[in-house]
């Protein structure tokens, strides 16, 4: 027994330390053992890559590389021959999205509410200002073999991985290593193989950026800064971060986006700076394949398909949304969708809760349409080509690394096992050759003499020992190690008991077809035993019951309830609305029994008894037609709202992170809203750039944008920007005094900045070469304000702050275009008028915080009577769908006329948004954005029946009913499917 154990240990040691060639600079302790790993693999089916297969071929490897490969290659003298009859050889896999062997980032919790915001970087050293920008992280410096992790990868068939530290928005470089367990020097193939980015600031506790749009702005600014840093500006000193950023640019650039919209957002940053990112995707790209294809990127696809939601209790099932259900159903088709669209992609183990799930999920992806050929490419050739390492790995060719798999059959067949994973010529046994299955003659040598049995081995976990009868047997083969436990005597029905009371225990080692070992008999005596193969089991070619590809529902646009089924998106039509009461908002006033024609997206005619042809005629008898509602202040349809990391964040843009799948788009269409001004929040004095959108439900983020509209920016004053409700304040300002100083300082800097560029441009014009000033996205936006190319909408409440903000504008030479909320506007209506501001307010909100205690519902009426251009806004996703009613309250509170009231949610906001030439009234030539109401639009009893944007019907009651039915039946279909699928392994 002792001898046996020693053998074991020795065998393991050999595997561990066997060097391909001694490292010349390293001393030898003992006797040198030069070895070249010279092997010939013969009689194999060699799959060189997805396109080329050699049957009955030979591959020679030496020194960790492929020496030659082909059909007629002879085994050279000096090479050890390995017979691979019946086996397959594949290039081993490559995963280019891992953190193998590099340190894990450690997160520290921090609450800005109770600890105050951290405005500066805590990183020590000559680095840049932001903790989340870490281009100087070099994964290779900290890389070290982690054999446990390597083994888990090797088991799956991987031979090479790209590894990086998954922390920060700029994450530094990745290192390319093999998964061999030799030493760190040998496994490292390329120390700087890639550069990495993401939208996650990782362990940074710095307050900025606190939003997706902040992440984007920070990346854009860093590109600009890095380019500027190349001219070695003295005022910057040494900035190691920018230096590293520049050094990393020639490498393949990999962006972790993890979601369809983030994929597009990342790609747009790349487009702006001439970078084509390789995009690490999520599992939902199939929902927007056209957009994904247009990125021209290569993608890295994870296989973390959602597990089936718990729907066993109908009440729990009710909380699972349709989009979640549909994504459960369709996510496994994501890789297939890429294949179908012809988009190059790699596969990764990343994001899986356990790497063990890789194969089941890969097989699921294949069941859902991913071809074997494409799967192999995505695990070999494509990642190799993507990183430019196809001279080393990715296929089996002469000169490349001896990274290959020996399998029992075609690799993606479910019955196939990976037998060995060779990495740089080193063998790692994954599964012992299943061909040990067969009949063995077992002889147990006891004091009483030999006992003979037959052992029928089915596989490594199951065998039956047969004496006179079949015996109750437990069998396990793990590599060379064999354990057998059996109960001699007749097999009984109560097997457990008999085994517990009466068992012979054997253990031993396999030496090819001969096994031997020791054991303990039923009485506790030591025994020895041997076994010899009598008959090898026939390799069964089991007819695999091919699982049928599942039938899937259709993609919805957006991928949400009430989305439009693929191919059923509403189209622009020529629409005639007849016999309606038409509220024109023009000099014509309200027309009764009138018609309106929309053609090519524009209002083509208004009048009585229009005799025209139309695709669609809507009877408006007894109904009211108005321009679409315009909401001056909204926060729907955006992935993030506030970048509160600093007091001035004019560089961030809502338009960078629109979410065209927000259900509130649809809900607001049902309330007659057609245009919304999506604002940055009020977390800071100078917030972000806003985005005007049209509620085109179903289009992508770019499609939502109101093209050609004047750009705006959000400012804010008062309690929110002072962070009045924080327990600890670290961010300037904390008073209204400071708020004004922030404004003055920002515009003073903007003016100086503008001047420095003007001077630079002058000099360049005159041919005087000079260093360019730093391009500052924050100040660019403020310069646009000074040049009246960008307009302000300013969150505001009390009269003092209104006056203070106007004073800055007057001093600096700009007008605050719009004061929004402006609840004490009535107190300084004359001053607002003089300044030239528009005002956009709530109808009747008050008493929720100190600065709204003097808010009055008569505010709109007073300001309107004073001659101000007044709008009523929502700032609330629910109220937005009743903006007509909010406008009607000005009739009640202050006696505004009905027509004027309606204008407060249509023409007036159009004017303050500088789009009154397009929308806000019903006039020939304007956009065909109209709402047909069941009643007087200012009445609580009015419901929108149709909401039309540019001649496309995005909402109508009948379609809405149909969609509700569709949601019900689609939910029911998928929930039943999940309940049935539960029995299956996935």
């Amino acid at each position: 027994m002792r001898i046996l154990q020693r053998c074991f240990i020795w065998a393991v040691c050999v595997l561990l330390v066997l060097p391909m060639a001694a490292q010349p600079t390293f001393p030898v302790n003992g006797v040198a053992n030069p070895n070249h790993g010279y092997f010939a693999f013969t009689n194999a089916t060699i799959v060189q890559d997805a396109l080329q297969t050699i049957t009955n071929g030979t591959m020679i490897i030496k020194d960790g590389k492929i020496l030659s490969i082909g059909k007629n290659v002879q085994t050279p003298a000096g090479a050890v021959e390995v017979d691979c009859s019946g086996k397959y050889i594949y290039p081993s896999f490559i995963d280019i999205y891992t953190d193998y062997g590099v340190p894990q980032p450690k997160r520290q919790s921090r609450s800005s509410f109770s600890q105050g915001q951290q405005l500066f970087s805590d990183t020590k050293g000559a680095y840049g200002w932001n903790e989340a920008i870490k281009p100087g992280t070099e994964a290779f410096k900290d890389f070290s073999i982690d054999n446990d992790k390597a083994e888990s990868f090797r088991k799956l068939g991987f031979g090479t991985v790209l590894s990086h530290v998954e922390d920060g928005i700029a994450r530094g470089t990745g290192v390319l290593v093999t998964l061999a367990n030799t030493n760190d020097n040998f496994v490292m193939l390329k120390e700087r193989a890639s550069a990495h980015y993401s939208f996650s600031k990782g362990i940074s506790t710095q307050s900025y950026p606190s939003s997706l749009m902040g992440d984007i702005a920070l990346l854009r600014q860093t590109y600009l800064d890095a380019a500027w840093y190349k001219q070695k500006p003295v005022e910057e000193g040494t900035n190691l971060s920018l230096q590293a950023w520049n050094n990393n640019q020639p490498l393949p650039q990999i962006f972790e986006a993890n979601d369809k919209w983030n994929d597009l957002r990342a790609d747009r940053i790349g487009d702006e700076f001439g970078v084509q990112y390789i995009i690490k995707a999520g599992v939902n790209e199939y929902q927007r394949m056209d957009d994904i294809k247009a990125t021209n990127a290569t993608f890295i696809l994870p296989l973390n398909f959602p597990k089936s939601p718990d729907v066993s209790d109908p009440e729990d099932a009710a909380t699972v949304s349709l989009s979640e259900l549909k994504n459960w159903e369709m996510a496994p088709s994501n890789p297939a969708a890429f294949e179908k669209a012809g988009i190059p992609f790699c596969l990764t183990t990343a994001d899986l809760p356990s790497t063990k799930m890789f194969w089941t999920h890969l097989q699921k992806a294949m069941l859902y349409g991913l071809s074997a050929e494409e799967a192999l490419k995505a695990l070999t050739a494509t990642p190799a080509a993507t990183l430019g390492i196809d001279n080393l790995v990715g296929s089996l060719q002469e000169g490349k690394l001896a990274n290959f798999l020996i399998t029992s059959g075609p690799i993606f067949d479910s019955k196939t096992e990976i037998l060995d994973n060779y990495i740089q010529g080193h063998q790692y046994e994954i599964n012992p050759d299943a061909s040990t299955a067969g009949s063995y003659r077992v002889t147990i040598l006891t004091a009483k003499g030999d006992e003979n049995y037959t052992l029928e081995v089915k596989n490594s976990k199951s065998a039956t020992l047969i004496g006179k009868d079949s015996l109750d047997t437990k069998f396990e083969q793990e590599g060379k190690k064999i354990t057998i436990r059996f109960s001699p005597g007749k097999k009984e029905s109560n097997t457990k008991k008999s085994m517990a009371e009466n068992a012979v225990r054997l253990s031993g080692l396999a030496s090819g077809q001969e096994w031997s070992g020791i054991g303990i008999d039923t009485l506790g005596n030591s025994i020895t035993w041997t076994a010899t193969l009598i008959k090898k089991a026939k390799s069964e070619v089991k007819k695999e019951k091919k699982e049928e590809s599942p039938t899937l529902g259709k993609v919805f646009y957006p991928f949400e309830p009430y989305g439009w089924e693929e191919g059923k998106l509403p189209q622009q039509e020529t629409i005639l609305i007849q016999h309606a009461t038409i509220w024109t908002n023009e000099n014509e006033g309200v027309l009764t029994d009138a018609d309106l024609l929309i053609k090519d997206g524009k209002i083509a005619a208004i009048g009585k008894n229009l005799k025209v042809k139309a695709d669609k005629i809507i009877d408006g008898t007894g109904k009211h037609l108005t321009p679409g509602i315009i909401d001056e202040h909204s926060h729907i349809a955006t992935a993030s709202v506030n970048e509160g990391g600093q007091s001035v964040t004019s560089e961030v843009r809502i338009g960078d992170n629109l979410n065209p799948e927000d259900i509130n788009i649809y809900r607001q269409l049902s309330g007659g809203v057609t245009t919304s001004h999506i604002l940055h929040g009020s977390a800071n004095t100078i917030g972000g750039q806003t985005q005007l959108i049209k509620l085109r439900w179903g289009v992508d983020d770019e499609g939502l944008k109101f093209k050609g509209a004047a750009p705006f920016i959000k400012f804010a004053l008062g309690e929110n920007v002072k962070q009045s409700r924080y327990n600890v304040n670290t961010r300037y300002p904390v008073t209204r005094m400071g708020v004004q100083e922030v404004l003055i300082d920002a515009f003073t800097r903007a003016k100086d900045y503008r001047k420095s560029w003007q001077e630079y441009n002058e000099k360049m014009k005159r041919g005087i070469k000079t260093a360019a000033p730093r391009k500052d996205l924050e100040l660019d936006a403020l310069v646009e304000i000074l040049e009246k190319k960008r307009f302000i909408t300013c969150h505001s409440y009390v009269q003092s702050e209104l006056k203070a903000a106007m004073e800055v504008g007057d001093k600096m030479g700009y007008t605050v275009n719009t004061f929004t909320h402006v609840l004490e506007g009535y107190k300084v209506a004359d001053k607002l008028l003089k300044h030239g501001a528009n005002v956009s307010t709530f109808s009747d909100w008050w008493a929720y915080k100190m600065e709204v205690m003097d808010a009055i519902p008569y505010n709109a009426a007073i300001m309107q009577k004073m001659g101000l251009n007044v709008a009523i806004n929502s700032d609330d996703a629910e109220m937005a769908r009743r903006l007509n009613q909010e406008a009607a309250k000005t009739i009640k509170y202050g006696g505004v006329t009905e027509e004027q009231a309606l204008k407060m949610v249509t023409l007036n906001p159009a004017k303050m948004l500088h789009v009154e030439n397009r929308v806000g009234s019903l006039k020939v030539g304007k956009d065909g954005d109209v709402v047909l109401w069941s009643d007087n639009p200012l009445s609580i009893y009015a419901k929108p029946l149709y909401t039309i944007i540019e001649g496309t019907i995005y909402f109508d009651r009948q379609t809405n009913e149909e969609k509700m039915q569709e949601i019900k039946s689609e939910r029911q279909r998928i929930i039943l499917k999940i309940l049935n699928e539960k029995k299956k392994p996935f």
Partner: protein
Amino acid sequence: MKNILFILLTVFVLQVDAQETVAPAKAHQGVFFISHATIHVGNGTIIQQGTIKIKDDKIESVGTDIAVPDGAIVIDATGQEVYPGLILSTSTLGLNEVGAVKATNDTRELGELNPDVRAIVAYNTDSKVINTLRSNGILLANIVPEGSFVAGSSSVVQLDAWNWEDALYLKDGGIHIFMPSMQRSRWWRFFTSNNQSDPYKEGLAKIEKLKTFFKEAKAYAAVKEHEETNLKYESVKGLFDQSQTLFVHANNVKQILSAIDFVKEFHFKVVLVGAEECYRVAPLLKENNMAVILLQPHQLPDMADDDIDQPYKNAAVLQKAGVLFAISDEASDTRGRNLPFNAGTAATYGLTKEEALAAITLNAAKILNIADKTGSLEAGKDANIVISKGDILDMRKSIISRAFIQGRQIDLTNKQTLLYEKYMQKYNLK
């Protein structure tokens, strides 16, 4: 008579500079008439060209054949609509002045078992918010404590009083329970992968404990003399003889279903508050004789999958199922003043206008156990009356011209109307 006329007039002449000087009206004595009115009784009927006779604090008679003697004080309501005073059936009015300022919040006491805590004692009759409700026709409110489980008792107040004692309309009439969540939110599922805890189980266990408390309280109530006084048991005594109502704040189906026990086992008078998912269980509510207070029809559906108009339609579902319900208003940014428009929305989405009106008048009174005194314009009830220039449910026309609480014509001035006047004067506007 002349005196009354004088009082009625002076109220309108009084123009003051701060709400602080808006005084509650003096008790009304004598008789006056409201004539030529379209009278919305509150019980579903409309009397055209009707007359209401008010004597002292009560309605003496309502109809079309009431003789108005010569020289009587008459308010000619020609062209106007007359309604019962609106009732806000769940509110933190007077407990909470400025949402964001903690010092002004008296809505929520510490602890999970506070049946003894009484909302009325913190009700501030000088709250600036109160008068902004009166000017929209809201004359009564149920003042409700908030809490994490058993929150305390509510009282109904009339909104024209010097102090809470004078404001009391029904003292400690309701015990309020805020149901445990019972359900995993979608966010919860998103952030936690392993389902260790089961909120349904935990919630049910918590309710079982409460039931034990009620059993003990019942046993305690059966004994007259106690060695040891238990304030908590004492405070729920009224539930057992239905002189108190159990208000169960519950929204999802699981919460609602688990409230049925309070009816079945204890025979309590149970009212569900919130009940966002009532549309899915309406027949069960009817079967168990449970009433509902809908808190906020103007809200978004819970899930993207839901009918986009579901919160608007809930009232109609209850109406159809025959469930007694009221509509309230808990919007924290407008503080209850939009109550009539919440009812208006329910009328747009399936109720008749009179059904919608009942949900903020008579049915609210029934649910609050004050229907014997108010809720409709019927003989013998308190003269809680609102006169509106148009349809009170529609903001387009809902302009309140007069209001009476127990016969007293109240001042419709509030902080906001005063600021309005002030700045109209500043700008010389009309």
